[in-house]
Each structure stands twice: as structure tokens, then as C-alpha cells.
């Protein structure tokens, strides 16, 4: 048993950390978040050159053929810098087509998704209101409906841009009457997507924790760094607890996705619920540590808080995932929930 990254995975992580730190500096993220289109095509091209869009897509379809763990590593790092990028939406489309598409559909769409040259976007949601990042500019849309899914050409779909609090991503409501059904079961792909999103939430929590800890060491009140006061330091210890617990659950779910698929449904919902709660509570707690300055637009924290809050709703709210957990751990089917 080895619950840690192997050398190759470490390499992916450190390359991603380095690349993203230089490309998505806080001032760049702010610039994109305040622009109408938060996606920078030149940066997307660079990610494509690194082979990221195809990381978890099979080699026969032009991807790197790696597992959900590697996808999760990238997604955590993307969350850590809060990169505005169509990456995750494209990855979701890849997961759904690879998981549930026909051979013909896979051959047609996956190479473009893997290279990033003809990216996809997926609306995956058990919620009534589908939201999908990065639908604009996508070559193919994948809509998840109940147990199934369908492929829709962007020209045949109704795209309505949503004006959400998180402006580091472009969100849309998508609807389409027609479309080409995916013949397979989308459930495992949807679960993997949840795990990828959970990883993003872990990255956001980690970043907010580090920012708050650094501030608590330097900010002085009553002649001491505020981090010396237990009211503050215990809050920060709690933030570490939230972040690490979410991380353990997310990494396990990522491993289970490919190595122990029977455990995936429960593990995915546990990870998504816990990581969403962690990201929202840690960013909120960080705001309290920063005090007034954390409430200002000029401080970067609010971008993390807003992405965490929207991310918690995507692919099912924490309450919905806990309801699924309750059924899967032995309470049986419950009634209707939010």
C-alpha cells in the first residue's frame, strides 16, 4: 500500500505548479476575471502543447492514457492558482464521450478534445439548472440527462450566458431538443467529473489556507502577530483539518475511479461533498482572518471564495451528495431532497 504520488505523478504536479505559477499570477487572474471573456487563448494553447487536455484520454484517441489520479493532480493545481481556463469543461466532455460514447463518436470527437484543438464542453448536472463552463467556442457539447447523455453541435443548442458571482469562468445554461444519444452508461464518467471538481476545491482550500496563514504570521494587533492568538490559530488549524480531510477523500476517489470502480460512487460523492464544504468554509474562514481587507474587491480572496461557492453547486450540492452517501451506506432510498 502506498497512498502517495509516484515519481511520474510528482513530476506532473511540480511541472504544473511551476507552469501555472508563472502564467496565472494573481494580477493575470484578476485581469481575466474582470474581462468579458475570462479565457486567454494563448494560455490555452500552451496547456495544449503540454498535452494536458488529453491527460486522461486513451492513447488510441490521441490522449496520454493516464488515469483519474493524474487528471486530479492537474485540476488541484488549476484550482490552486484559480486559473480561468476551459480545461475542466473540456475534460468533462472527454470523460463522458470516452465513458459512454460509441466507437464512432469517440473516434470523431476525442482526438480534438485530447489535443485541445476542437475542445468540448459538458453540461453534467443532476440539478434542475444545468451550468457549464466554457460552452462558447466549443466544437461539441455533451449534455447529461438523467442516466444518459447526448452530443449536441453548438449550432443546434441554445446557449445562455449566466452572470454568476464567479467571473473566473464562463458559465452557460444550455438546452437542446435534438442531439445524438451516447449509447453507454454515463454514471462512471459523471462520478469521475465530480472527483475532478473536488480536486479543484481542494486546490482552492489549500490556497486560501496558505494565504490566511501567511497573513496571520505578519499582521500584528495588540503588539503580537494575530496568529499567536488561539481564536485565530485554532481557526487556522480547523482550516487545515478541512483541507486535508477533503484531500484524502479526493485522492482516494481518484484512485478508486480506475483501480476499484465498485467503490467509486460512494467515494465520489463523499469527495465532492467534503471538498465543496471545505472550500467554502476555508475561504470564508480566511476572510475572517483577513478581516476588513478580505472584504474588499482589491484583495484576491473573493475570487477564491466565489469560485468555491459556485463549484459547490456544480455537479450537485453537498446536501445532494450527502443524500446519496446516506443511501449508499445503508439507510436505503430516501425522500426528495434539494
Amino acid at each position: 500500500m502506498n497512498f502517495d504520488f509516484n515519481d511520474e505523478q510528482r513530476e506532473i504536479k511540480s511541472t504544473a505548479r511551476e507552469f501555472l505559477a508563472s502564467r496565472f499570477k494573481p494580477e493575470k487572474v484578476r485581469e481575466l476575471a474582470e474581462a468579458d471573456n475570462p479565457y486567454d487563448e494563448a494560455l490555452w494553447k500552451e496547456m495544449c502543447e503540454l498535452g494536458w487536455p488529453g491527460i486522461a484520454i486513451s492513447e488510441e484517441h490521441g490522449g496520454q492514457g493516464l488515469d483519474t489520479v493524474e487528471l486530479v493532480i492537474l485540476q488541484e493545481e488549476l484550482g490552486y492558482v484559480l486559473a480561468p481556463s476551459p480545461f475542466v469543461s473540456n475534460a468533462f466532455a472527454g470523460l463522458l464521450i470516452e465513458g459512454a460514447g460509441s466507437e464512432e463518436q469517440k473516434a470523431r470527437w476525442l482526438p480534438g478534445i485530447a489535443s485541445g484543438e476542437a475542445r468540448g464542453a459538458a453540461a453534467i448536472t443532476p440539478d434542475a439548472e444545468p451550468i457549464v463552463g466554457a460552452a462558447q467556442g466549443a466544437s461539441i457539447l455533451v449534455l447529461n440527462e438523467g442516466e444518459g447523455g447526448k452530443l449536441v453541435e453548438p449550432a443546434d443548442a441554445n446557449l445562455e450566458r449566466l452572470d454568476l458571482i464567479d467571473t473566473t469562468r464562463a458559465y452557460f445554461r444550455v438546452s437542446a431538443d435534438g442531439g445524438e444519444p451516447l449509447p453507454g452508461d454515463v454514471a462512471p464518467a459523471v462520478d469521475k467529473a465530480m472527483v475532478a471538481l473536488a480536486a479543484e476545491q481542494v486546490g482552492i482550500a489549500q490556497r486560501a489556507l496558505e494565504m490566511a496563514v501567511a497573513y496571520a504570521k505578519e499582521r500584528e494587533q495588540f503588539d503580537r502577530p494575530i496568529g499567536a492568538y488561539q481564536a485565530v490559530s485554532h481557526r487556522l488549524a480547523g482550516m487545515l483539518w478541512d483541507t486535508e480531510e477533503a484531500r484524502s477523500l479526493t485522492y482516494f476517489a481518484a484512485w478508486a475511479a480506475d483501480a476499484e470502480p465498485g467503490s467509486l460512487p460512494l467515494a465520489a460523492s463523499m469527495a465532492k461533498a467534503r471538498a465543496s464544504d471545505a472550500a467554502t468554509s476555508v475561504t470564508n474562514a480566511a476572510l475572517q482572518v483577513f478581516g476588513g481587507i478580505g472584504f474588499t474587491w482589491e484583495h484576491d480572496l473573493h475570487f477564491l471564495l466565489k469560485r468555491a461557492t459556485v463549484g459547490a453547486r456544480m455537479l450537485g450540492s453537498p446536501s445532494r451528495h450527502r443524500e446519496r452517501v446516506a443511501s449508499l451506506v445503508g439507510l436505503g432510498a430516501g425522500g426528495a431532497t434539494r
Partner: protein
Amino acid sequence: MDLSLTPEEESFRDELRAWLEENHPGPIPQGGDQVQFEFERAWQRKLHDAGWAGVSWPKEYGGRGATLIEQAIFGAELARAKAPRPANVLGLVMGGPVVIAHGTEEQKERFLEPILSAEEIWCQGFSEPESGSDLASLKTKAMKENGGWRITGQKVWTTFAHEAKWCMLVARSDGDAPKHKGLTYFLMDMEQDEVEVRPLRQITGEAEFNELFIENAYVPDENVVGGEGNGWMVAITTLMNERAGLGASAALGLSQALGELIDLAKQTGLAEDPIVRDKVARLAIGIEGLRLGAMRALTATMKVGIPGPEGSIAKLQWSSTNQALTELAIEVGGEEALERDSMWAYRYLRSRANSIEGGTSDVLKNIVAERVLGLPKLR
């Protein structure tokens, strides 16, 4: 990343599981504390005879030399089988490892085997009425006397004191030295008139713990561990002697309790209540988080020698989850769960101590803040 067991780990687990199936002593017999203790002593003897006592101890000292992962498997399998605890748990987990790490050859020869066989029970004399979290402020005095020491003072929260032959005792041997420097670690014979044991009744009604009143008790020089003045360092290694697999077995115990809670909710018609369901799911997630965090900590410890940050929060996770679980059981179980002889009432009350015993949650948060996050100390 590979969370499956290696073939060696699997065969370790299978061998243990088969042995437990054949040798499980059955439920703890009724008849009071003494009957239960003798039952646990017999159980440990059985474990020892088959080479399952002291799994983490090196083979040369009578242990099994198990890896950290195997120790975790051991803890989890015992919890899974609902096996009783071995009688001499403090000797196995703390006393033996301290003697192995800091003891002389004579001490290893003298003390280790009777710990494994449960022939000699060990207790721990660290805390005092005025020294709880601030252990290094302890006041129990050790005065030099020809060839040995005379100990005077008071200790508290001493589990198994009434059964114990040996007490791991930290006392102040040099009143003039700075507080962490003037301490010495002794192995005190409990069978002397100068040591009085008084049981402490706790809120559950039972008496797991004791007070020790020590009036001029004698300890020969050969029972000093780690040398005069090194008591703090020796005590710290005992406390830091991470009980590998603790998280794994604690998580297993909790998931068994969660299973019972789910049955209770079904019996009382609350299995479909959305709030109960949400709380059960939170518990299930917390338990799984503890289990996985323990596995990450084990991996980190095997690689770099110390557990990562996830290891330092395991005790916090366990105590808060166990408390929340028993609170929900009281809520779900209704009036019957509140009756004085109810199992849930007992667990609810007993779990109140979880956030105090073995390091209070408040102090653990200080430790996480200072050592993991590097925040400044208040002191």
C-alpha cells in the same frame, strides 16, 4: 499511488484473520471489572503464545517486527473481529517501546517478556492534579538515596493502577533545573505500601482511572530509564510513539458503531428523516476521512520517518466524530437510549472524555498551529 495491499500484506491479514476466527474468546463475561480484567489477561496470553502480542516490537525482543502498514492491518482486524483489548495495553504500546528505545540490556532482559505475556501489568504516572496539558510543570519529587530514589507526590488519571506491577513515572529529580530539564523517568514498583491507589469514579459511574498517592516510595537506580535528567525526552518519545494503525482501527470501530446507529434509525422509524440522513452521511464522510488520513500518514511515516500534517489531525477527527455519532444515537434512540443501563447512554457519556484524554483537542490545535502551520507561539 496504489492503495491495494501487497501480497505480503495480504497474507499477513489472511493469517491473522484466520487465527482470529479460530481463537476469538467470545464476548466479555459479566461479573464485574475483575472478571473482565482476568478475561483480557487470558486473551493477551493467547495472543502472545501465537506471536500476536507486541506486533510492532522487533523480533529480537519477542515481537513480530511488523511494518507500520501491518500494524494498521492488525489494529483494523482486531476491531473488525470485535476482539477484546489485551490487558496490558499500556505496557505493549508505551512501556515496551520505551524500554526498547532507552533501556539498558538488563532492563530489556528484566521487563519485556512479562509485558508481552501480561504477567506484569503496566500503568502510567504522568499527569498530576496541577499538571495536565502542561505536563512539564509536574511536581512529584524524586530524592536521591543510597543506590536509589525516594519518590513523593500525587498522580492522577492512572489507568490500570490497581492491577499494575510497574508504573512509568516521571518525577522532578532536580528542583533547580529548568522545568523540562529536571525530570527523570522511573519504573516504580506498585507493590509497596508507600503507594496508595484510589479509584476515581467518572461520569459513567465506572472507575477506569485512579489517583496515586505516593509517600516516600522507593525506586532503585537500575529502574531509571534513559538516565537522570532525561525524563522529558524519554516521556516525549513515549507520547510520540505513534500508535501506528490507531487511526485505521479507530475508523473501523467508528464504522461499526455507525452501522449500529443506522440499525437504530431503522428501528425507530427515522431512517427516512432527511436531517438524520444528512447527519449520518456527515459521520460516514468523517469516518472515511479519518481512515484515509491514517493511510496517508502511514505512507508518509514509512517514507520520511514522520507523519505528515494529516496525521496530526487524526485524534481531533476521531474524538469529534465519536462524540457527534453518540449524540445522534441519543437523538435517534429516544427515551430508551437515555436509560442508565443503555449502551448508547454509556457510549455517549464515555465519549465526552475523548476530546480530553490523550491530549485535549484544544492543545492538539495549538500543536497543529505551531508545528504544522508554523504559527507563532503565544507564550
